[in-house]
């Protein structure tokens, strides 16, 4: 399970303020803290307050600052393709692009970028019509993305398909469809595509959010989830992931299994 730390995002006020005042302190602090907490990628997002014209420059700064003292690669998160490319251009190691949808014009923008920078890419199983309700329709969109990656020479195991979980208080029927999608997308190509999920989505606006996130994460792992964008400061969640990896025979058991998961 590759945990992608969600914290370096301009939606959080401390990060927004750091971006506006060009203060690297809080960004570096969250990079290091998430690294120690078990993150293996760091999501970086300028947030909505940055003017679209300035986003490329801000993303470049954000990636540089994040990687300055922290060895983790970034998951470059933006709806602005120019900002994504600006981040990719200065990134060290294997970046992840967050994200493309199954819309052809978007795939034509982002997938060649993944090929050019040898980056992984997140593919959302949605298009301009929105998020499909059924697993079958999600899988159909996933196939579109798989085909486009293949055509552009992006290895299918560099593709992280996100079946898009919706908040369980307003879209309760989606949970089982997402789990079924996770199972099915693994059969779409060889090597199988990877999978990911914006975990906090599942509990948006709900009570007891961490409990919902954690529970859905472990259920999803059992169905084939390879990574998640998540709050790695939830230590109970990280420990549960370590236990789940042992139970699924992904890590060889030893008494210090939580510690070894954190130290990998």
């Amino acid at each position, binding site marked *: 399970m590759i945990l992608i730390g969600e914290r370096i995002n301009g939606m959080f006020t401390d990060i927004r303020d750091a971006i506006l005042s060009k203060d690297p302190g809080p960004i570096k602090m969250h990079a290091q803290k998430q690294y120690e907490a078990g993150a293996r990628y760091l999501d970086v997002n300028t947030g909505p307050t940055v003017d679209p014209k300035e986003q490329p420059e801000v993303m470049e700064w954000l990636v540089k600052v994040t990687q300055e003292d922290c060895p983790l690669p970034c998951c470059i998160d933006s709806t602005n393709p120019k900002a994504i490319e600006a981040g990719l251009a200065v990134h060290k190691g294997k970046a992840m692009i967050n994200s493309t949808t199954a819309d052809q014009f978007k795939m034509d923008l982002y997938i060649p970028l993944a090929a050019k920078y040898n980056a992984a890419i997140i593919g959302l199983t949605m298009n301009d019509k929105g998020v499909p309700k059924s697993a079958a329709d999600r899988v159909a969109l996933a196939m579109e993305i798989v085909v486009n990656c293949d055509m552009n020479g992006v290895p299918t195991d560099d593709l992280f398909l996100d079946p898009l979980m919706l908040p369980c208080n307003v879209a309760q029927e989606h949970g089982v469809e997402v789990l079924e999608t996770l199972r099915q997308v693994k059969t779409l190509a060889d090597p199988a595509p990877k999978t990911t999920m914006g975990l906090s989505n599942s509990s948006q606006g709900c009570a007891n959010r961490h409990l919902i996130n954690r529970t859905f994460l472990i259920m999803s792992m059992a169905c084939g989830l390879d990574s998640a964008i998540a709050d790695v400061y939830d230590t109970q969640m990280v420990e549960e992931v370590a236990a789940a990896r042992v139970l699924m025979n992904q890590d060889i058991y*030893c008494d210090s299994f939580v510690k070894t998961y954190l130290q990998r």
Partner: protein
Amino acid sequence: MAVNIVKEKWTSKVGEVVLGTENTVTMGGESTLPFLHFEGAIPHRPVMALEVWDMEPAEWPEPVKEPFAGVMSDPVAWAKKNVEYGADIIALRLQSANPDFEDTTPEKCAETAKAVAEAVNVPLIILGCGAEEKDAEILPVVGEALSGKNCLIGPATENNYKTLTATCLVHGHSIIASSPLDINLAKQLNILITEMNLPADKIVIDPLVGALGYGIEYCYSIMERSRLGALMGDKMLSMPIFCNVGQEAWKAKEAKAEDMPEWGEQKKRAVLWEVITSSAMAQSGGSLFILRHPESVKQLKVHFDKLMQSNEY
């Protein structure tokens, strides 16, 4: 249609351990399963050590005593003989320190070890007497006497690893982390040792192997699984594997039985027992073999050299 060769892509490799100072011996470093040269790097031939005892081993069968006639009461002469016989490493077993034998003092053990170290120009493995508590007394003193010689010392168990790890840290030796055929315990012991700051490239895993006919299948599976773990990135199972084959093979009734003409000549069959056990262990990931008979070293050298020829295509 052209045949597409399917190759496994591993993300990690086995760590390398170096023993000795001048004539060093390196083991490990494999980036795929044993001898699949076409898939990854197999940088080092499996290493063979011949055993020397600090007392005459009364219960060794005749065929394995015969090559050492006249030197078995003198560890220095015996060690030199082993080098002549082609051993890559000398494994000195301080058996006499066992309270059931002569209960030799740590100081006397250190003296013997030092004399052997000075007499040969190959790296040294120091094996304790088989009693955990006594080993924790003798090995620190021996380790100090051999300070800087980059020996391999053990076996360290979950009961005495602290003392032995400290010795290795202070005097620059590597450690044999020993656990009874249990991958979970092996991993945990490696974690405990590295937590004391001994680097992973100073550890070899001793899974306490059994001989052919005495649980070899189980050893094979455990070793294979830990190799797969290493290749998939499990750093706490990435150490080279130590196989003490000699003591197991020569304990087997197939090696010891004298009056069994229907099993073939004793010497031939006993040596084969050691050779076949070792070659099976090499196929499951063994890197270091402790042997007793020089003929086994000779036969295995031919076998391993053949296996080291590239099969790349």
